[in-house]
């Protein structure tokens, strides 16, 4: 009944508003939607709570974690503690009903907000109805160098701050995955550790004992110049196969605000949950017999982290965009997506696949102009999901379009769901990242669940797959955000959670 109602509402809004239908074939993709023809069911929620309806923060760079209980979710973004800058904790978003409603709980030990944050629930969480949640953060203040903190809590709804399990200075962009092996949580935190020797900074912090201890593993075996890029992305299959993708910068001209890297796209593999001796050397490139398969080499990657002007891609900065996902039930099959610059594009997304444990790779299965924030996931039935955000148009008419593509045949056929289509020039950037250096997608309970950030104006034209559920006050007639007294609230960037049924 609910499914029928949602579909009906979505199609009705499409007819009335002249928007594309809830899920459609991307004009640039193959015309046949593929073996599955039913429209995915889409649920979209602006996760800013009702009681924070007056906020106008730039809540960018969202991330999502799903508990083994499908009702329990934890999300994060660059959302400050509403209590103010003097707060000793930063908040995370919590849902206890599968993402229909969200609350904000300030339990992350970082002053008011973090400088990076990702989180994942442990496999042992089944015994803890609202935990265990593990976080990798860069704690605020960041002014004395970025400090990695690895955290956990047995209950995300408690009022107690998360415990600090481990801490290390001079580290960037912790990106966490957690899988249970032999009844213990194995925690994988990709990070760019500037303490890595000779610029070989690509690192994986591994814990095989639920976070009691962590071991940093250096992943880069080749020379870099000057270092690896910030994105170090692990993915783990149920059989213990672990892949990590990273950029091997071989040269860089420019500086941290503007430059160009020449980079390899590298994948390493470990067949024993990261515990092989030596670790992550199972996959060697035939060109030099060095650990780390080169999926692509010599790519030109623009780095633009500007000041004082906005970023070049719809106000967003660019330079390190990467995602990898292994089939949880078939560790031979994995996808990778990265961004570089091709032709006259500002930024170009590429997507490729391997079906032989990373030894050989396809050519581009998808090539998308002026797109970023790739996030890949593979569902239990093998359906691949690909979330990304793309700028269309230019100047004053530029739009950020957020897509979720699904395929059951390696992107020969695609089911594209446009989750949002919002102005790229509104609201003005308040800092960087504008939408995020990444977003996130995962597969659970027969659904792709994910999160992205976008302009929060409650305008049906901005949400072709159906209006999001807003927890904050909105006036759909005037298409305005409202505070509790009915006064208009400025448009800002909010995190949006979504569920989309997996193609069968």
């Amino acid at each position: 009944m609910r499914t029928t109602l949602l579909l009906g509402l979505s199609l009705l809004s499409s007819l009335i508003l002249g928007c594309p239908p809830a899920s459609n074939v991307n004009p640039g993709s193959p015309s046949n939607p593929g073996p599955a023809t039913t429209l995915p069911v889409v649920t979209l929620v602006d996760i800013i709570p009702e009681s924070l309806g007056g906020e106008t923060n730039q809540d960018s760079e969202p991330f999502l974690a799903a508990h083994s209980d499908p009702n329990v979710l934890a999300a994060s973004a660059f959302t400050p503690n509403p209590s103010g800058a003097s707060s000793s904790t930063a908040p995370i978003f919590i849902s206890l009903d599968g993402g229909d409603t969200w609350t904000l709980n300030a339990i992350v030990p970082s002053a008011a907000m973090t400088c990076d944050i990702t989180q994942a629930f442990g496999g042992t969480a089944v015994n803890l109805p609202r935990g265990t949640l593990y976080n990798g953060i860069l704690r605020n203040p960041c002014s004395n160098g970025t400090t990695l903190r690895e955290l956990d809590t047995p209950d995300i709804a408690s009022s107690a701050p998360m415990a600090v399990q481990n801490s290390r200075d001079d580290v960037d962009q912790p990106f966490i995955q957690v899988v249970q092996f032999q009844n213990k949580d194995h925690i994988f935190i990709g990070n760019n550790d500037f303490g890595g020797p000779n610029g070989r900074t690509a690192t994986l912090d591994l814990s095989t004992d639920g976070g009691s201890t962590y071991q940093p593993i250096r992943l880069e075996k080749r020379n870099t110049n000057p270092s690896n890029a910030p994105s170090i992305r692990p993915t783990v299959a149920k059989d213990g196969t672990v892949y990590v993708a990273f950029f091997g910068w071989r040269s860089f001209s420019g500086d941290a605000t503007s430059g160009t890297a020449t980079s390899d796209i590298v994948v390493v593999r470990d067949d024993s949950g990261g515990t092989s001796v030596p670790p992550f050397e199972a996959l060697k490139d035939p060109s030099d017999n060095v650990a780390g398969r080169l999926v692509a080499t010599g790519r030109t990657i623009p780095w633009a982290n500007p000041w004082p002007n906005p970023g070049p891609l719809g106000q967003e900065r660019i330079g390190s965009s990467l995602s990898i996902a292994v089939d949880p039930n078939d560790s031979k099959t994995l996808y990778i997506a990265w961004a570089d610059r091709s032709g006259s594009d500002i930024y170009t997304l590429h997507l490729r696949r391997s079906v032989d444990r990373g030894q050989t790779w396809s050519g581009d299965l998808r090539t998308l102009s002026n797109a970023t924030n790739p996030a890949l996931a593979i569902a239990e039935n093998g359906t691949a999901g690909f979330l990304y955000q793309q700028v269309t148009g230019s100047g004053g008419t530029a739009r950020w379009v957020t897509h979720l593509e699904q395929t059951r045949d390696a992107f020969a056929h695609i089911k594209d769901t446009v989750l949002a289509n919002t102005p790229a020039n509104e609201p003005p950037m308040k800092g960087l990242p504008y939408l995020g250096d990444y977003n996130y997608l995962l597969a659970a309970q027969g659904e792709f669940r994910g999160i992205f950030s976008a302009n929060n104006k409650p305008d049906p034209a901005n949400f072709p797959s159906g209006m999001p559920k807003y927890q904050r006050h909105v006036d759909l007639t005037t298409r305005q955000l409202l505070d509790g007294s009915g006064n208009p609230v400025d448009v800002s960037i909010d995190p949006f959670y979504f569920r989309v049924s997996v193609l069968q």
Partner: protein
Amino acid sequence: MRKHWIVQASRAVVFCLLVIGVLPPTNGAQDRAALMKQASIIFRGTVKKKGDVSFKGVPKSDRTIVVVVEEVIQKPSAVLLSKGAQVTVDAIDAAALSAGSSFVFYTEGWIYGSGVAVREIGHEAAPVRTAELAEPMRAQLEQTRKEMSDSELRSRLDAADIVVIGQVTAVHPWNPPSLVATRPRISEHAANWQEAVIRVETALKGAPADHEVVVRFPGSWDIAWASTPKLQSGQSGTFILQKDKITGVPRAALAGRPVDAHTALKPGDVLPIGEAQRVRALLRKE
């Protein structure tokens, strides 16, 4: 222990109020000021239910009580909270808060959802004659805010190496030589250091040898630095500066001469020119 003492003190205030039906005595006011300094959300309300919560998503416990808000005294601007709202309070000692009784709650935010849940820092009995309390409390709150603001500013003035009134005459990028000599650090969190030259009109503390001062600040708009001062050429202000202990390069060059380099890293390190009088007054009290 301190919070417990505050609750105990509040109980004493309740007793006084019940006996004489007037405002808390001076000691109560002092306690109140201490509570105000810690609290981000202050409201007066009546305990409706104990061992319960006011909205979905808040874990129920013996410590949680539901309070109906009668008056919001202080809250962050983004938080929607008004008279009649039901708030969950994670109480320090729920036994001290009987249903039907009214209190002023000094709290910090806990969970924000369809409603607001707060952690109690302290409470005091609401006055018998509410209207009589409201204005003195507001006045005290304003006074406390001013004191907190002055105290915070004075702390920064104490910590500053120099305080000057002046105008920015130039801004240019600056790279720490150590980073240039070794591997450049390419990170989205890089500070993107800038050097500004300030022409000193009046030195309020730590008179610089020259009439110019070199100030370094992060130009980056990354989330790590977005709230730090961004100096612009032509900008006038009151500058609260520290010697550069961040970049590892404590000296700068000014017209070919070596001088101390300074930094401005916190939002309050650069104040409008109109704040100069307040800064002078606070410095005079030192």
